[in-house]
């Protein structure tokens, strides 16, 4: 089985600094692949461990993807190779453009059985790239997939809706977006990280693929942090009886 795992890198949100005026500063934020995209890599790896084949990473992004560390990190989570589509400048492509770029990137990868996406990217979390990609490719497409069982030319999947769980049979090739609980992504060991450096990475550009990334569907007007409520930050530590008594003393009215 040839599985394509789509993944996107974004700045680590815990390290984004909110400036006095509410704008964001990314200087201290290292880039990392979204934690939910690791579910796609893991699901691909598990399928290949069952039936054989390979897991190929496919990512669209800007200059941050030049980082060897970032590349090694995603490969070490279970990829056999990585395909990178770079977009010029710092603009983040919207979901339609990303889907178009992934579709064009898939054309370069050759044949595939399954395209996997995470629940959503860690920056925009629109949860739409897999859906839009599947529609562009015109192949079976589903979201909120919790488990995948291979049976030759089809897969049986479990899909979680608000009030029910569906069991569906899906003809391959297909595009599936996962839930964040679909699996527990493996932690890469030293060996995986060393091996990652030797795995094949292929790079192309949006321009070379002939995808126009200049006209977005929606222009960003602003990105501003909401006002934070100031907190007391009283920290209690030590003897259990003492700290509970102190807590009740401090916020007793809220507890009774």
């Amino acid at each position: 089985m040839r599985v394509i795992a789509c993944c996107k890198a974004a700045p680590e949100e815990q390290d984004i600094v909110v400036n006095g005026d509410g704008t964001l500063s990314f200087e201290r934020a290292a880039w990392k692949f979204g934690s939910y995209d690791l579910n796609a890599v893991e699901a691909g790896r598990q399928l290949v461990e069952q039936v054989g084949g390979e897991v190929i990473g496919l990512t669209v992004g800007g200059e941050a993807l030049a980082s060897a560390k970032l590349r090694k990190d995603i490969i070490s989570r279970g990829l056999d190779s990585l395909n990178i589509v770079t977009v010029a400048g710092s603009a983040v492509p919207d979901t339609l453009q990303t889907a178009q770029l992934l579709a064009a990137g898939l054309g370069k990868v050759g044949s595939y059985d399954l395209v996997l996406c995470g629940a959503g990217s860690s920056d925009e979390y629109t949860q739409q790239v897999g859906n839009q990609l599947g529609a562009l490719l015109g192949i079976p497409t589903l979201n909120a997939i919790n488990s995948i069982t291979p049976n030759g030319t089809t897969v049986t999947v479990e899909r979680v809706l608000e009030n029910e769980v569906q069991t569906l049979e899906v003809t391959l090739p297909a595009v599936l977006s996962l839930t964040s609980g679909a699996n527990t992504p493996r932690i890469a060991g030293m060996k995986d990280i060393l091996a990652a450096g030797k795995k094949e990475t292929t790079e192309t550009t949006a321009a070379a693929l002939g995808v126009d990334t200049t006209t977005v569907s929606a222009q960003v007007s602003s990105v501003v942090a909401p006002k934070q409520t100031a907190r007391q930050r009283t920290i209690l530590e030590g003897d259990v009886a003492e700290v509970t008594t102190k807590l009740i003393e401090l916020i007793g009215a809220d507890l009774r």
Partner: protein
Amino acid sequence: MSENIWVVAQDAKAAGELCAGAQALGGVVHAVLLGCEEATKAAAANGAQTVVTASTPAANTLLEGYADALLALFEERGARLVMVQASTTGRLLAGKLASGLHTSALGATTLALDGEAVTVTYLVYGGTAVCTRRIISPTAVVTVGGGVFEAANAGADSAAIEQLTVTPNTPGITLKATAPKQGEQVNLSAAKRVIGVGRGFGAEGDLDLARSLATLIGAELACSRPITEGEDWMARERYIGVSGAVLKPDLYVAIGISGQVQHMVGVNQARTIVAINKDKNAPVFKQADVGIVGDLYTILPALTAALR
């Protein structure tokens, strides 16, 4: 905007809210009701002039199979904005429609008009910031969650009713079985006190420690996302955060929760925040009024006993 806004809904609550929202935007409101004819009243009472009903598909197909028919409908009737209920099904439909209409599907926590353009806001970077986007494509496709708009139920209640006669079709996808999830009615947003549990709890049964405290102080039990999605210990409606419930209680007690931005954005409007965590460097302590550094397995029984 005296232009056509189409609402796509799967239940009466969403039909009412989204139609009311579309009307508030000043559009000519039309609704497509997927497998919920009974929502016709709610749509009409909230301004829908046309209601197109699509019946529940045969047992082995999905509502998503109406995507092509909807695309044809919106192209024929000239939709300027398509507002889709933000369910799993609605999201997939929105993505298909957006690709067909050559635009990007966006999620919205607010939706407004800026001149002739539709403007949406939504949270980015795990809730660190609010992004505002102005949609410039000829048709906008937006998913809208519950509570973004309020149903007014004040309309004339006189919609033109049509029926979508196409048979839904999802080539390559066969629905084999459907199992109901044991549904639970939760209304976290009404709760004055909320206790949130996280991965610091080692086993499902241990949640009883938090449950006892919750019962004692009259709090609702909520959780972090991994508790509902990785573990399945609690109903999905109970997780707090950027992709879950956003609350404003008087008191929030985070127990065994690290305090990642994605979680805390759901409670940072709480009046008082208490955190219990054994890791003194856990980010949650920076966002708490009172923090107890300690093992929840000893703190909780002691706290419950002290309050009894």
